[in-house]
């Protein structure tokens, strides 16, 4: 199974607004597998948050998906789930959408990386050596 998947290549899935989904599917990442499960989800303003959450968790569980693209404004809705996902694969990439420009301060990965630079931790780098 693993060998088969390696030969076939893994999928890029997308959760986002209409234009993001239409665009990336036009780019050729869309797939509907034998069980009729699509690898994309279109979110509009009426989509309940629980549905987005379920879809995200389903994509994380699928072993044929390597990248999950999610619009940053959608990611904000299910931030706690995204923050809880720490495994490198599938990689969750927050992408901007046409009406929500990219905000680095919201990005889960960048916030995690920035957390390493908080003042208490800096003492680890020898900051206390400079104090005296």
């Amino acid at each position, binding site marked *: 199974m693993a060998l088969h998947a390696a030969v*076939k290549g893994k999928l890029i899935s997308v959760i986002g607004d209409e234009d993001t989904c239409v*665009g*990336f599917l*036009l780019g*050729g*990442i869309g797939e509907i597998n034998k069980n009729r499960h699509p690898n994309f989800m279109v979110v509009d303003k009426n989509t309940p948050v629980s549905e987005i959450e379920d879809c995200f968790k389903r994509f994380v569980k699928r072993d044929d998906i390597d990248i999950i693209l999610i619009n940053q404004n959608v990611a904000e809705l299910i931030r706690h789930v995204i923050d809880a996902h720490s495994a*490198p694969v599938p990689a969750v990439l927050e992408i901007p959408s046409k009406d929500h420009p990219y905000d680095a301060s919201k990005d889960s990965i960048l916030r995690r990386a*920035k957390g390493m630079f908080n003042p208490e931790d800096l003492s680890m780098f020898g900051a206390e050596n400079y104090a005296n």
Partner: protein
Amino acid sequence: MNKQEQDLPLKAVACELLDKIVLKQLHLMEEKMRCELNIESSINNGSIHLAKSRYIMGQSSVSTARLPTESSSDFSASTVCETAEEDGVTQLKVVENEAEDTVNPLRWFGVLVPQNMHKAQSIFQNAINYVVECVNVQLQIQTNLKNMEVLRSYISSEKLSS
């Protein structure tokens, strides 16, 4: 030089290594933001072409209504990514799927689609490359985070013992 390095206590070496990783991490974070901005401009450009096609073909002809649903026949993605291990970091790369049951997504929107649709397609195909580039940077950031954690706990344990 070599002699000097040997003389350095283990802890100093660990600290120096940590310095290097932290510096690299800052560069990677900058790189990630640059990639995201590339993705953003691609999406913006692509959206303009989608909007132009929508103007030419009518409101509902470029919408989610045209995307395949669970009831349509199954097909494979034409663009997939492959994993490769590089220096202990998982890296992905874009490959064309060689499976036979791929479709041209343009056909969902009609047989004769405007030129803008073709342009939008090539822009989004390019955006996929940026996306994978960004994911690779992100994977490196995550590996670095883990390494920093390990080095830190090592340094603090050394501190306690000395």
